[in-house]
């Protein structure tokens, strides 16, 4: 039932309340946070920004969870990107050396291949994810929801005893 509740809430979020920009912003920043393992300093700061800005936190949790799963699968690629930036790009070496000699910046764990890789991948994907999610939500609201009641399948579900039982149960607070 918990999953059903979460799903219902998710559907509700998509349907009403926050603007598509707030939802997409929450999702994309959550995704960015979820890509990076652990809690290095820059992730803590970004999380604070997420809390301070009027972005949707539910979407941030969903984005973060999805990012954790994706980063697990794409770890070798993320690691390669980080290692390349840290080891192979000569132009960046002087920057890394100055960062490495700064105790405060070291708290970001920038010299870790996965942290650097996930930061870079997250940064690259931040805006595309934001615009894509915003577009999808917009489309969902404008196209999908507007025509939902007209579909035969919707009518069949709404007339079924399961739907009626679910509505009664939610009215009396069972679900």
């Amino acid at each position, binding site marked *: 039932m918990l999953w059903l509740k979460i799903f219902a809430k998710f559907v509700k979020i998509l349907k009403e309340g926050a603007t598509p920009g707030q939802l997409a912003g929450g999702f994309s920043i959550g995704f960015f946070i979820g890509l990076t*393992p652990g809690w290095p300093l820059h992730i803590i700061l970004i999380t604070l920004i997420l809390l301070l*800005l*009027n972005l949707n936190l539910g979407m941030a949790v969903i984005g973060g969870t999805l990012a954790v799963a994706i980063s697990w699968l794409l770890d070798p690629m993320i690691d390669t990107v*980080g290692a390349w930036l840290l080891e192979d790009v000569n132009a960046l070496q002087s920057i*890394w050396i100055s960062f*490495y*000699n700064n105790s405060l910046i070291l708290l970001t764990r920038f010299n*870790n291949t996965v942290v650097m890789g996930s930061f870079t991948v997250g940064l690259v994907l931040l805006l595309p994810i934001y615009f894509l999610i915003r577009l999808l939500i917009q489309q969902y609201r404008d196209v999908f929801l507007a025509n939902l009641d007209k579909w035969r399948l919707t009518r069949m579900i709404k007339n079924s005893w399961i739907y009626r039982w679910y509505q009664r149960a939610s009215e009396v607070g069972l679900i």
Partner: protein
Amino acid sequence: MMIRKSALLVLSLFILLSVATIWLLRSSWTEQLAENTLQDMFEAKVEIEGLSLDLISLKAKWDTLVIADKDREMFNLIETGPAELDIVGMPLFEKKIIIELAKVDGVSVGGRRKTSGWLEKKKPSKAAPTTTPTSADESAAGGEEQAKTLAESKEDIPSLDLTALTKNINVDGLINRDQMKSVSAVKSTRDNLTQTYQEWDKRLAEQTMVADAKALKARIDKLDLNTKDINKLKKQLDELKQIQKEASRLQKQAKQFKQDASRDWKNTSVQVKDLDELIDKDVDQVRSLAKVADMDLNEVGKVLFGRAVIDQFEEVLGYLRKAKDFVKAEEEPADIYERRQGRDIHFKRTSPALPEFLLAKAEFSGVDREQRYQGTLMGLSSSARVYGKPMHLDMDLSSPGGSWNVSGEFDRTGEISRDLIDIDASQVDLGRIDLQSGKDSGLPQALIPLDSNVSGLFTVIGGRLDGQLSLKSDKVSFDFHEQGSDASSQKLKRDIKATFKDFDSVDVVATLSGTLSSPSINVKSNLDNKISARFKSLLGKKIKGIEDDIRKSVKGEVNKELNAAKKELKDKKSDILGRVNNVTGSTGGVDKRISKLKNELEKKIAGSIKNKGVDELKDSIKNFRF
């Protein structure tokens, strides 16, 4: 995009609460953190009382600090009174504790504890050590081994029991035939002799050279040299050549046989000759049992001062071991790749690299057993290789007897560890130095030097040890044991005491060398030659008499067996070598006979060919017709 006001409020509240909590718990929290860090370093319990941390000026203070000794459960390694520390701020972000300056008072070492100082998780277990030793720990373990070996070497110092000379030594009673090396060597030589004889007896019985020689002679006798048939003569020559080849092979075999016999019996003779060296060793052993082992008096310095010196070496090496424990060379463990873990890439340090813990400089002072001391310690770190500098110690000690300076350098920055301790003292009163000579030895019991100069330099580089301790005193006296009851021993003890009477100054130099696993000690003093000469004039004749008695008795025991062995060797050797000569002699002479016969045959063949040619010519002339 708008700011979430409620989040701002919650965040501010959270920050305020966190600051308040840290402020309230800062003492216990920092105490716990410091105790844990130090416990990891010293592998023993650490107790800090009254720790306060000023987060703004980054200064720390404590009232007392007690660090237990990880090797001695009920003792403290170090105790301190009030201390002030200046902590460097930025490295704290890297979880590194860097103390720029520490001022510590009331330092004392080796105090007793009321409770055990061992950490539960690190309690040493005989069956399974709890920690993996680092290279520095291994060196320290070498130090343990060193101490043990030094203690053992104390027993190796010869004990000079001069009063033993006053007693009648029952040399026969001291000789144990079963343990005498020369006697057992004679026995084994005789066993070898019997074995060699049996082997050669068998080889002589099994050899076929005599029979082969006879067979060759018979083949020669069979040859018919009187025939005039040239073809038969040629056949006889071929047979003779074959016999010559076989005779030559037989002679080579006989020569080798003789060489083997000579070699084997020569070895047996050598074994008998080596017995003289073993007799000398047996004499030394009996001398040792008679307690006159080192009456040659070449090592008087070692005998007199050796034990006291080893005690000093052990004390210094004890401090060296402790220092080795503190100064660690550990490096960061290698990264192991796991998903979402990544690898840490390390870049060039433009600022000095910092270990997890560093005490850059500590100024300390304290009082311990009437000794007031103060000094500085620099570069105590959790990883000397990361810090890149060795630890330095400089300490001044003052006591009613005088003042000392101890300095040291403990270097774990490279692959090979280098430790150095330098001790210096001038015009100090060392009190009474127990020389640990035996009660009945007649030798002095203690040395009492006044206004002494002491210097010592100890180095341990890798496993290699080097140390020198020098004591110079212009005014000394010796203390002796009470006189014995025996009249003759009393007289000797008085004489020995008189031997030491005129010595005003003492100059002792003790050197420690070798490796950690097998150190060696040498002690020389300015008294060596003088005492040796005086002892020789006092005891020389008596000593020589005892030595002669011992040698005579040992030789008497050995000679019974040795003479029998020598006779047996002579008899068996002549028997075997005589028989071998017979064998080789039987193969001789054949070749000469063969050469002679061969010449005869060749002449006959040449003559037959010539005659045959003349006859054919005559026949041709007879039948010639015009």
